[in-house]
């Protein structure tokens, strides 16, 4: 049985690869987007974008870039979940929905267990702006600083101000609570803030990191970012060593140019600048973010994720249907995920190779 469809109708794999090559080669400025792929898949996709003189973007670039904008404009303090697990005597959870972004978070950080290094003590856990009812962790007494999403930037700013001994204009009770939290942060031996950029914006991450910088004047404090979905961090790393830049990079001029606005996938499609797209979402089958745009679309996703329109080629799920390298949240490093349910499906890299094999010879390699 073929795993490819065209406008919802089954076609042979060979025809699908042929058609995909035709679409991409005919385009003036094709977009390779989604990029929800393992490292080998991302490498193939980025090389393809370069060969076609197109652009590439990742489906969670917004989140990766929220952290990266802070890195490249101000800098960042980070650690690994392992180091937080063994050493963090204070954990500052920032923003709502952390368990949604990283389901294993509390178990991995062993918040209910004593620290191992730097002294054996129970951990203090403070959560700024959790969702209602979210701040419950088995065996852990969680102190909360309530804040709605709208209030969170102001509360973070006020907390940073109090850490630095600067005045805030808040009611006495709220100020007292913040002062207590600020004191706790300052008296931590090795404090760790945990956040997900998916739930914050760049300015909030910068506010948090600014506070961490100030805390390091007298003690040790650092952070654990929760990376974006679809191997966003792994693709970011791969893109960096291949091109020097993160995703949202284009090759139109024959060399890599990075611009977070110009090469944003939805903008390229909706403005008409991109005239064909290869959408890769091998982990989840997530659909493209753009709407009502009729450009030729090729989708690589897991079986069952075919869109109604356009060309679809099923690929395996990385680390599930085939052995794959990805960035692991639990280790903050690249790891090999062995296939838990091997399947007779092409990998992302294989699908791209099969498409590329159909290009006519006048395209440079």
């Amino acid at each position, binding site marked *: 049985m073929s795993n490819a469809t065209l406008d919802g109708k089954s076609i042979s794999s060979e025809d699908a690869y042929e058609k995909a090559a035709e679409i991409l080669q005919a385009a003036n400025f094709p977009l390779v987007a989604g990029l929800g792929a393992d*490292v*080998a898949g991302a*490498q193939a996709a980025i*090389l393809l974008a*370069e*060969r076609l003189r197109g652009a590439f973007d990742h489906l969670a670039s917004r989140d990766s870039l929220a952290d990266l904008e802070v*890195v*490249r*404009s*101000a*800098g*960042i*303090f*980070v*650690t*690994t979940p*392992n*180091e937080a*697990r*063994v*050493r963090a005597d204070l954990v500052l959870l920032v923003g709502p929905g952390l368990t949604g972004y990283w389901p294993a978070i509390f178990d*991995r950080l*062993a918040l209910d267990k004593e620290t*191992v*290094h*730097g002294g054996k003590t129970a951990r203090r856990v403070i959560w700024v702006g959790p969702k209602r009812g979210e701040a419950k962790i088995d065996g852990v007494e969680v102190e909360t600083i309530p804040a709605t999403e709208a209030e969170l930037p102001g509360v973070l700013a006020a907390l940073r101000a109090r850490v630095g001994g600067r005045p805030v204009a808040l009611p006495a009770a709220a100020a007292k609570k913040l002062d207590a939290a600020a004191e706790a942060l300052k008296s931590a*031996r*090795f404090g760790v803030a945990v956040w997900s950029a998916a739930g914050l914006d760049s300015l909030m991450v910068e506010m948090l990191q600014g506070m961490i910088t100030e805390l*390091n004047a007298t*003690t*040790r404090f*650092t952070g654990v970012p929760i990376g974006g979905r679809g191997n966003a961090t792994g693709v*970011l*790393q*791969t893109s*960096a*060593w*291949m*091109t*020097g*830049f*993160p995703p949202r990079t284009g090759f139109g*001029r*024959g*060399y*890599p*140019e*990075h611009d977070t606005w110009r090469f944003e996938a939805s903008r390229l499609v909706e403005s008409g600048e991109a005239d064909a797209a290869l959408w890769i979402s091998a982990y989840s089958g997530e659909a493209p973010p753009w709407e009502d745009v009729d450009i030729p679309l090729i989708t690589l996703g897991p079986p069952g994720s075919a869109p109604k329109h356009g060309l679809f080629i099923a690929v395996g799920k990385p680390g599930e249907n085939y*052995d794959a*390298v990805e960035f692991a949240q*639990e*280790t*903050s*490093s*690249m*790891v*090999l995920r*062995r296939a838990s349910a091997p399947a007779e499906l092409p990998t992302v890299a294989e699908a791209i190779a099969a498409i590329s094999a159909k290009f006519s010879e006048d395209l*440079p*390699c």
Partner: protein
Amino acid sequence: MLTRLYGGHVVDPVNGVDGVGDLYFEDGRIVAPPEGRSADVEHDVSGHIVMAGAIDIHSHIAGGGVNTARLLLPEAHRAHRPRPANTPLSTAGWSTFETGRLYAQMGYTTVIEPAVSPHHALHAHLELADIPIIDKGFLTVLGNEDFLLSAFRDGATQDSVVDYIGATLEATRAIGVKCVNAGGVDAFKQNIRHFSLDDVVPEYGLSSREIFQTLQRAVNATKIRHPLHLHMNNLGLPGNVETALATIDSSQGLPLHLAHVQFYAYGTEGKNGFSSAAARFAEKINANKNVTVDVGQVMFADIVTISSDVMKQFNSLPGGRPKKGVIFDGDSNGLGVVPYSYRVSDFFNAVQWAAGLELFLLCDDPMQVFFTTDHPNGAPFTTYPEVFALLMSADKRAQYCSRLPADVLELTNLPALKREYSFYEIATMTRAAPRKLYGFEDRGQLGAGSVADIAVYKPQPDKAAMFRSAAYVFKDGNLVVRDGKVSHYTKGRTLRVRPEYDRKINSRLDKYYDGLYGLPRSLFEVQDAALPNADAFAEVPCRS
């Protein structure tokens, strides 16, 4: 296919060759002049200098630190030219691809990345696999991890430490062991901001001296060829030559490599309390033949410092140029990435520049002193040709000195040093000596049986131009560079060591990982299935 390079001036210190002669190679190896056969391909290299491919013993070219620097500094590596057909990513600035291309064009054919944390080994291998043409390898970083420090504290036998090192080299596929600010990286996590040779790591009760010495003995006992590669305490600080001298005094008569020593050649003289102490340092190096050093020369350029010495990097943050940086407290390890700009008008930078050259010129034996800029910490590797030219010309150094702040010249001996390196000494420093330091049996020389990694340069008055653009480079016998431009891309090998060790350590380590991290140790091992080119590894033999 038999190839002959004829008429060139062959400079091959390992074989004592320094004169005009022919060189033959076939099937990727250098062969003795064959009798009764003529070559299939001949290159007239008369008037050229012929050397083995150069070997860089310490250059940060791959891994999490380098990649973090790329992401930190998008402004530093814009490309400006469209790429030619048939060379994917050939115009990407500061990419894996560019790294291989630029090294090859200078006649370098082997480069060692000196600092990869064991838990980030896979990432480094993925990058190395992507670097074309050159062979490469990395040192893995030990000496700040709880497993080892606990073992030292608890008086573990040397055999068990040897087993641990063997298992780590196996899991990471590294070529040797580096130690960075022994104990200081762990101490920084415990909020200690300065850490010297006799300071003690809390929790373990071990001084930096004890840690590096015990590790040095254990590395020696593994029989891997490369000695412990040590990044000492107090990097960059005024007066730190005392630390360096004391470290050499503590080197136990065993092989020890000291990394980027220019950054430790500082005294406290003068009104700024900062001076070159290179003369004292060089004297000590000359007197201790068990010690090798690489210089870590500074050049006046915009750079980025990438170091596992996270304590030092944290302390450098306020002086960053521009002022930003990444401070990473890694698993039993660390990393700091801080941009910087060395300026000829800056008193401190000028002293650093002069101190590095003094070390080059005052260390007598080019087998003992290695050519590095600690890329990119002291200067990008692309400045090597200019540094070679400085070593080969006292006049060129005088030209540079005329641009330095006047008070700098009073605090260095550089203007008085008239030594000029010969091609033979340059080849010793960049070919013969690295061959010995890493125990390579198949490279660093042009004798029969060696890999046909060959660099051919066209002599010219401008030595920097000569070394910048090799006339020919052969990698494994393939012509890869012609007239300073890559003409053919190949895939290089990754070099690793596999010392003998007792596999019983593995179950202990598995238990340790499970207990401390609640994760399988295999998650951190480099496995064939993770690599695009698992067959690209080549093993460097251990001592028998």
